[in-house]
């Protein structure tokens, strides 16, 4: 299987998905309970995760998986809880944009973002820490 071909498809498709995540997050900024926007971010993150996993881009897979997990919780709750949680989602988007840009620039998988992943998937404390790295651990 020619993974080089799939790398190019990944860059194109992930870039489109990230643009859709961005516009959906902007919609959520106006309406934290927009079901359509919540579903869209969930599906786009899921799709990026699947593509990145196929190419063994572990760092991208982890962040996309974290974002997908967070969106699954938001789906169940019916809305983004507050501005902090929305900021965390934007953090996830920015990280994915930077990672896809790194693949586009050099083809090397970007470094892992363990703290962001644990904020997306984990406890309130780690969420706050990711948003404000100056906070004590």
């Amino acid at each position, binding site marked *: *299987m020619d993974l080089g071909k799939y790398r190019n498809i990944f860059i194109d498709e992930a870039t489109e998905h990230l643009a859709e995540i961005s516009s959906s997050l902007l919609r959520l900024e106006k309406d934290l309970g927009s079901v359509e926007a919540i579903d869209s971010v*969930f599906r786009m993150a899921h799709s990026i995760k699947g*593509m990145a*996993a*196929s190419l063994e881009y572990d760092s991208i897979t982890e962040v996309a998986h974290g974002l997908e*997990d967070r969106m699954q919780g938001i789906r169940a709750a019916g809305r983004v809880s507050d501005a902090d949680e929305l900021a965390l989602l934007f953090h996830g988007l920015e990280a994915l944009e930077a990672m896809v840009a790194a693949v586009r620039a050099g083809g090397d998988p970007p470094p892992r973002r363990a703290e962001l992943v644990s904020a997306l998937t984990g406890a309130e404390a780690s969420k706050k820490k990711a948003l404000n790295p100056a906070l004590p651990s």
Partner: protein
Amino acid sequence: MARVLVADDASFMRQMIREIVESDGHEVVAEASDGLEAFDEYKRVSPDIVTMDIVMPRRSGIDAVRSIIEMDPDARVVMCSALGQESLVTEALEAGARDFIVKPFKPDNVIATLTKVLA
């Protein structure tokens, strides 16, 4: 050789499955990028087997399986799932899907699963 319908909202995944199934001598007769299209394409081309993603826009892969099985109880549908979707896979199997393959796809596993379901 089987006639295959590939349903996935990601062009990346559709191309990957196409390459894998064609390498085993099968023919991809149609592609669909959401659950509604998957149902419509199933009616149009009557494939021997379907690979069906779970998370898709407009109608999920599970709802598409339900519609297909209601129309054709003998339909052979293989779900494409990701880690962490075990409960959705169970739901799809209860809805009538025959088996599932897990992303990221391993060509040997995909071919072995399709061969088993087609037997």
